């Protein structure tokens, strides 16, 4: 059984009285592609933020382990240095700098000075950003900025990639292109994607975990899970209300 890469143990987070995450036990294998789905307010993003350290997990609120290392309560900066790539829900990029400069800053933290130029060019090619390489991010459209942010993450060649709603606000053509890239990167890296765009999740394939009111409702291959009656109820139920 390939070793577990990411593991949470009875993880729970309370905001005031509300249980955003309710003692979730989650396991992720090496080079797996996992999607986290669930209706709005299911706790997907909060759970994601526990993994990235953006939400500080209290000592007695469960444990988070990455490759066996207990990272509960670590700051994002420490977690990233373990070789994890993080893309947040709202695009977080350096608007005043060009695409190349954003990529340079990201790559330079991991690669030696000589290798940086090639890594940056490789990412630009991979994400087909040649046209806008010299443009300032502040002047780009939302979809383009999403793709650049994913490029920024990839530039560090992380072995674990956490993507929060990467497909939000991008065109179908860009979404298809993104699926290709994710599959390509998945050869070497483990990936977790949080999203609620069913079409995108289905085209990604891989295993799916459904979160509902902070707890894991169902987990399994994408087709099986999407066909599951309870899952459909939860989705339709929430929409019908």
């Amino acid at each position, binding site marked *: 059984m390939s070793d577990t890469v990411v593991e949470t143990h009875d993880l729970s987070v309370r905001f005031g009285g509300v249980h955003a995450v309710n003692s979730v036990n989650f396991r992720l294998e090496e080079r797996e592609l996992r999607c986290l789905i669930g209706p709005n307010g299911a706790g997907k993003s909060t759970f994601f933020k526990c993994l*990235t350290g953006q939400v500080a997990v209290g000592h007695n609120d469960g444990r988070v382990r990455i490759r066996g290392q207990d990272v509960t309560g670590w*700051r*994002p*900066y420490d977690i*990233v*240095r373990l070789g994890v790539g*993080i893309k*947040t829900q709202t695009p*977080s*990029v*350096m*608007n*005043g*700098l*060009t695409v190349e*400069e954003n990529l*340079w*800053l*990201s790559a*330079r*933290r*991991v690669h030696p*000075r000589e290798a940086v130029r090639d890594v940056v060019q490789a990412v630009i090619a991979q994400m087909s950003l040649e046209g806008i390489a*010299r443009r*300032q991010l502040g002047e780009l459209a939302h979809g383009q900025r999403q793709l650049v942010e994913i490029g*920024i993450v990839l530039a*560090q060649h992380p072995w674990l990639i956490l993507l929060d709603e990467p497909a939000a606000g991008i065109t179908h053509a860009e979404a298809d292109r993104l699926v290709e890239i994710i599959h390509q990167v998945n050869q070497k890296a483990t990936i977790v994607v949080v999203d609620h765009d069913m079409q995108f999740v289905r085209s990604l394939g891989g295993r799916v975990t459904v979160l509902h009111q902070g707890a894991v409702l169902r987990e399994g291959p994408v087709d099986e899970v999407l066909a599951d009656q309870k899952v459909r109820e939860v989705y339709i139920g929430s929409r019908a209300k």
Partner: protein
Amino acid sequence: MSISSNFGTGRTNWLGFALATLGLLVAPAVFDVNTMTVLLIWSLFALSLGLMWGYAGILSFGHAAYFGLGAYTFAVASMNIGESTVPLLLAMLIPALLAAVIGAMMFYGRISDVYMGVITLVVTLIMFKFINSTAGDAYRIGDARLGGFNGIPAFPVLNVPGDPELQIYGIGLYYVVAAALLLCYLLCRWVLASWFGRVLIGIRENEARVELLGYSAPLYKTAVFTLCAAMAGLAGCLFASWAEIVTPGLFSLGQSAEVIIFTIVGGLGTLVGPILGAIGLGMLKLLLGEQTLIDNSLLLGAILVLVVLLLPSGIVPTFLRWRQRRGAMLAARSKAGSARRRRRSQGEGA
């Protein structure tokens, strides 16, 4: 607003630098040496704030604390040691140490900029009130009496390293200060072009994203805060050597505000801006001193309000943007001109 690529810092304009160096060499023949020296000292002080605030986004209301501490450290050390080389180094080291402690406390405490402004202001106020109350003869370090409001007069000034007899003042001090300013400018250029400097600029743009890239923003900010404090300490030490007296006024609210005004009016986000701001406004302040008709604070206040309303981003960036727009306009006109010529030639050719 990126002036040109290279992380928005623009290429080092070597021609401009050479011209500036030549200008500084020749200036004593034209301008009064004494005035030029203090203007360059104020420029060095403003440069240190410009680097920290313009490029790393760290706003300090109390930058005078390190300027004053550098001056006092030099005065006390040179009085006790007599030879000025060690005091010069101490005048940079001690403000840097203080900045490291305060910087770490603030940046690792993840404090937002308004509160950071207040804390830096409070630090200066504490130092001002403390130094101001050290007039009693109990307050002395070695042979140097702190002297409270009266300050410390008549300490040995900078001398040629190794020979306490050969004291540097007048035109000699002018060249030392000019050299210090040019070297610090080059240091700032090198820092901004280095990996360290680029991370700082990244932090100014989006600190959260830089943290998500695995850089520890507090560490970088503390480092640049300490570097700029050392530079301010150097400026303080040169000022002490120029004025031959150090007084609590160096830590005052007015001194901190003055350097902020120099930096903003000169232009944030540039290195040359703060320098020109310091020279321009510093000269104005000195000229105001030579007339007793109009009240000086009235004039300085009016100028300040007008600059904020009319030239919000400061003189140098406004000039650069104007030059860029003029450049673009010219290019557009020439393109239109050549297009007309081409059409005319095609018209004839076709």
